[in-house]
């Protein structure tokens, strides 16, 4: 479904991803793990089109994304929740969700909005609160719901567990699993939190210095301290 072939990307003249390869099949939940600065976020930004490719190809449903601008990729079903969530702080919860609906121009969004509010009671409760006034965990839920408003086919998540209380992290695990299983939305997840990943996915990719260095079952990684030190610790 989503495929990265020999992708080189970075910022200006700086190359962060060097020959990055990844293959995500439909309906899967895939985790990409690695330390700070190895290129995880850069990979997501390259997929969304926020940064251009220096080399290589990214295909989505067998279609080359190269010449598609960011908004066109979003309309094709690629939804991105960045690490700092990018909630519109001055808009209410409802307006944050509506903004997503207007952008993707999908019909029947009002029903969808009601369904989402039903599914996430915390958002219904805070519907008229300003986005910026929500806690970190609530913002993460709002960001997920906002992404779902666009009826995406794949969800790109950048460290959804970062800066969030452990109790809420569990809730996010459940939410993501439900999104993947019930809505049949593919999830590509970038993380440093191994426990969080192990609750969600069975396979993980390890990234170092802009490349995938390993692909392995999450359980194997969980039991291999050396590997953890090598690629996730110091």
């Amino acid at each position, binding site marked *: 479904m989503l495929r990265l072939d020999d992708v080189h990307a970075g910022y200006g003249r700086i190359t962060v991803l060097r020959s990055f390869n990844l293959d995500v099949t439909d309906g899967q939940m895939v985790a990409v793990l690695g330390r700070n600065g190895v290129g995880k976020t850069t990979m997501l930004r390259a997929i969304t089109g926020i940064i251009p490719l220096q080399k290589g190809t990214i295909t989505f449903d067998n279609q080359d994304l190269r010449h598609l601008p960011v908004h066109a990729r979003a309309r094709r079903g690629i939804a991105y929740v960045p690490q700092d969530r990018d909630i519109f702080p001055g808009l209410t919860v409802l307006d944050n969700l509506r903004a997503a609906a207007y952008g993707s121009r999908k019909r029947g969004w009002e029903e969808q909005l009601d369904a989402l509010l039903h599914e996430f009671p915390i958002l219904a409760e805070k519907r008229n609160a300003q986005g910026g006034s929500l806690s970190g965990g609530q913002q993460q839920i709002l960001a997920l719901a906002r992404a779902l408003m666009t009826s995406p086919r794949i969800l790109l998540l950048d460290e959804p567990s970062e800066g*969030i209380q452990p109790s809420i992290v569990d809730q996010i695990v459940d939410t993501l699993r439900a999104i993947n299983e019930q809505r049949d939305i593919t999830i590509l997840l970038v993380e440093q939190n191994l426990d969080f990943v192990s609750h969600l996915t069975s396979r993980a990719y390890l990234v170092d210095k802009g490349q995938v260095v390993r692909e392995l079952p999450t359980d194997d990684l969980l039991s291999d301290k050396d590997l953890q030190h090598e690629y996730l*610790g110091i």
Partner: protein
Amino acid sequence: MSSGTEATTADRKSLAGIVRRLPLEVAGMVVIVVVAALLPAVVPEYQALQWTQWILYGLLALSLTFVWGHAGIFSFGQVAFFGIGGYTYGITAINLINRTGETFSAELAAVVVAALAAAILGYFMFYGKVGDVYVAIITLATTLVLFTFMESTAGPKYAIGQALLGGYNGMTGIPTLSYGWPGSPATPLSVTQTLAIVVGVAGIIAFGLHILLRRPFGRIVAGLRENEDRTQLLGYDIRRYRLIVFIIGGSIAGLAGAGYAAWGMFINPAVFGLQQAALVVIFVLVGGRTSLLGAFVGAILLQSLSTSLGGSDSVLTPIILGGVLIAVVMLLPQGIVPTVSAIAQRLVPQLRPRPPQLPVPTSPPEQLPLPTKSDRASPQSGPLEAIDLRKSFGGLTAVDGVSLTFAPKGVHCLIGPNGAGKSTFFNLLVGRYRPTSGQVIFSGEDITGREPYQRVRQGFGIKLQVASLYTNLTAFENMWLASYANIGNTKAATQRAIEILSWLDLIPQANHLAGTLAHGQRQWLEIGMVLAPEPVIILLDEPTAGMTREETLRTVDLVTLLGKHASVVVVEHDIEFVRQLNVPVTVLHQGRIFAQGGIDELRRDEQVLEIYLGRGGDNVEA
């Protein structure tokens, strides 16, 4: 463009060399002077009158070219100083001409008053750290305030001595340029004599600016325009340089204004008008923002066009002028003179500027010696200490009581997972943030409240995470600016710049623009710039970000070597780099020191792994 031409040894002495290095500007200047000398003989008087006005406008535009094109200060206020100069000339000349018998003292008074006005306005803007856009707004507002003020000075009660300000009708009866002696009646200059003097003075001023821009002052000003942060971190007081530039610009505009009042024997508040303010910007844009000659070309071209269309009263004039401006901005974004100059250089290879010959040492330096220390008294050198540093942003405490001492020599690494507070801590050491509480001590002295440039002068070398170079200057010029900041001697700075470039193996790229270098080379160039003033504390934030493995390994050698001469603090999240360095490491987590020790020891520490895996227990929650 001209500020970049570097004069160095080698072919400086030969006449051919000098001729070859002469840029178009000088040639243009010569043409102007020759034309000035010939004009009185060939042009009829009415045309001489016109040319005088055009040249005066060119001088006004020149002041903006200098301030904006070369120093990057976008000022709408040049017409304010022009008008102030004009009115000052009028008032002084009317009152003094019968006593002194000449009006050149009034010209001088106009320059002084305009310079003073620029100094006052500039002081508040630059020392008040007003942003670029606001400089434009403040200068425009000042101009319009003067317009309104002068409009309201109609009536006999608004007089200074014998000079009536005249309100919206303007000040009349201003003497033309005259010479003579106190006691005897003044002799006015003829129209053609005035033209010759105006052209001569304009030529001299333009040439003076040209020379100034090639001096160290010009390079520093270019640095200021290209990268304010870096210039500051090299230890230059940017506020002072901006102010000086602004005062020079104001003086030139004032002189032009005085000439204008003398030329027309009249001045009115329209000189402070919006249209006039915009016109100067248009002159400069059309002629070429970076070209001193362009200021005159723009002014003469547009003024002659406007005259041939029937002057500013014609309905057509603004439309055509607007059209010209749009055409130039769209088609020749560099402006006319730089474009013509580039075409000429393409057609005639001899006109191309030759890269300066750098005094490269004949024998390549041995493998990685640190550039020789100058015998300058070495700055104070003692440990750098952080004492219970804390920094909060709103409710979030990013650094929460960190105490660390860095020995006078050696490398120290700071690492930590996301949000550990590494960058905040770094910025506290650098002086970009003020701590909420706690102290930074250097050699026993409390430097907590010092600005980054003050710390640099005390011996700090700072490399921020985002590469900060002058991308439009050459590698050599970058290094030169860094060296000059501390040495203050052109020749010694050149020598030091070459030394460091050759040490970094960057001599082949010395004449390349920094923006065109490979990423690793740019990082090294910047590290070299940090080293140029021989700092005793070197602070590096993620020096290997974006480097290839080979480049990273070379940087390891470089940093190791620096550690033998200075105290080096490195914030890094490239763990491979930290492993290779093999130096004492401090792990930060949630704003506190979590662990300290050698990298191997820390690697075996399960708790350190835990925090990297996000199992740090009480994770932050807003």
